[in-house]
């Protein structure tokens, strides 16, 4: 105890707290994750592969990738625009807009889904008009994308706003006085300064877009092989007592999540290196 610091607790307290943390982590994070993979392979890898390659599963994977593939770029653009507006300009209603961006986090996803049904469903506000013009939103891809975009909207914006706030507008102003036009300022000055934060936001946004259940569940209509995303497909299988298949699909989702976490750590690692000395 020669170099014991004032903030160090006794050995007993330390081991008690560390032990508690390990128990909680194991119980709530590691065990469930392990269970998913164990259950998925319980009846052999043949069953696992079959579960993932049957038509309904393939269609769910495709739909999930498609929905994320469309929502994530949209939210990247929206998030960038919102962060740019909020951090580089002062205007009336700025703080209101800031709270509005957080709305999707505050509202239950199920309610978000219901709102879209209320607006665009057959008996919704725009239902008759949509029907007359032969446009289907609810129980179809557009509805799923709308719900996903809504739920994942804050990720990119929330990541960028504090970052851009702390960077200020000096460099942008310098670029402007040097004759750079709007797009050049964004491309050569703003974007390089926020690229790691942006990438991080996109990764989180993507993870949520692929895993979203509540809002998508309400608007999709659960049409097997058509409007089931991967999380919905897992639920259907589970309800049909096809546990191994359900866990196989769940394992795929978990794998995507782990991949995201891995990439996220990589981004943090790289950005940490580039930020050194600044």
């Amino acid at each position, binding site marked *: 105890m020669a170099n014991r610091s004032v903030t160090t607790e006794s050995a007993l307290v330390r081991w008690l707290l560390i032990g508690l943390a390990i128990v909680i982590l194991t119980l709530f994070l590691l065990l469930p994750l392990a269970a998913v993979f164990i259950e998925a392979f319980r009846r052999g890898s043949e069953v696992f592969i079959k579960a993932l390659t049957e038509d309904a599963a393939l269609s769910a994977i495709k739909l999930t990738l498609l929905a994320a593939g469309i929502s994530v770029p949209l939210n990247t653009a929206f998030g960038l625009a919102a962060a740019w507006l909020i951090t580089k300009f002062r205007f009336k209603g700025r703080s209101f807009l800031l709270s509005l961006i957080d709305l999707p986090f505050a509202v239950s996803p199920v309610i978000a889904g219901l709102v879209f049904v209320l607006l665009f469903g057959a008996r919704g506000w725009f239902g008759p008009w949509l029907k007359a013009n032969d446009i289907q939103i609810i129980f179809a891809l557009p509805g799923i994308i709308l719900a996903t975009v809504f739920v994942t909207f804050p990720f990119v914006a929330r990541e960028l706003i504090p970052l851009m706030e702390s960077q200020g507008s000096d460099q942008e*102003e310098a670029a402007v006085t040097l*004759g*750079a036009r709007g797009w050049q300022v964004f491309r*050569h000055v703003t974007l390089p300064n926020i690229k790691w934060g942006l990438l991080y936001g996109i990764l989180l946004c993507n993870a949520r877009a692929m895993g979203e259940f509540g809002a998508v569940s309400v608007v999709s209509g659960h049409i097997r092989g058509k409007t089931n995303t991967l999380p919905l497909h897992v639920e259907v299988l589970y309800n049909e007592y096809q546990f191994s298949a359900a866990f196989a699909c769940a394992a795929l989702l978990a794998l995507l999540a782990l991949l995201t976490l891995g990439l996220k750590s990589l981004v943090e690692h790289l950005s940490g290196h580039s930020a050194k000395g600044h």
Partner: protein
Amino acid sequence: MSISIQSIHKTFGSYTALDNISLEVPDGSLTALLGPSGSGKTTLLRIVAGLEFADPGSGHVQFHGEDVTDIPAGQRGVGFVFQHYALFKHMTVAENIAFGLTVLPSSKRPAKKDIDDRVNELLGLVKLDGLGKRRPHELSGGQRQRVALARALAIRPKVLLLDEPFGALDAQVRKDLRRWLRIFHDEIGLTTLFVTHDQEEALELADQVVVMANSRIEQVGPPQQVYDHPETPFVIRFLGNVNAIKDSRNPEAPIFVRPHDVGILFAAEADPATDRLARVQHLFAAGPVAKLSLRLEDGQFLDAELSRQQLDELGLDVGDPVAVRMQGASRFE
């Protein structure tokens, strides 16, 4: 190129940042905008740069007779150096300096080799030869400052604007760079306007000092004139230590006298018409200048400065009676 500012008004919401400002900056001069924070000096500089716009219909900014009031910053042709330099930290020094040339439309952009030559020329001009490949974070504060200057000069600006150019540097670098900037300005002869809150810096560096307070201009003139003939109580207070002494003639308007202008005589030599009697309250004699705190008969305190030689001749000590003669005192009635 001269800068002419005519009755500029600027408000932020209900706050008036600039109140009817008019100013002429002569061609080739080095002019200081001097004032405390909140005086409006930086806002004025940003309006000249086109980073901020005056209230609609309020007045004009002209460069060499040409109205630039509504021209945005990018087309105004100003070199602006920010207080914290605002270097592009993901670019090398050379890329920073070349920025203003590389963003030109392809029809106006010089060939790559010409840009490289210009960058090298500028690196030489600001004494940073060979540092083009460094990143901003690998440079010292003074070097970053000069990169910012070179970057601003690369576009061959009509005027050079500097916001607190030495504000972020430590004392020694600040002194060196100040001297260097004066010589540099005389070499390139570019009309330069800089903002500072440091009166010593303004007086030492500028050809023309513009003293600002509370969104207005208090006084404009060459450093010596502003220092020797201040026109308002604010100017005399802001430009250095000063005593404000009340007397019976007009208690509303005190007499202002600088410590080094306070003449001290033996009490026996007092001329009742001009001098007042006082006692030495405190004496600080370490260093080349002796600083005295005097207490007048009516209880007011007065600071005085004497050379060590004068102090020795007078042989003063704490508690001694003296006569005080206020030379070159100003009064604003």
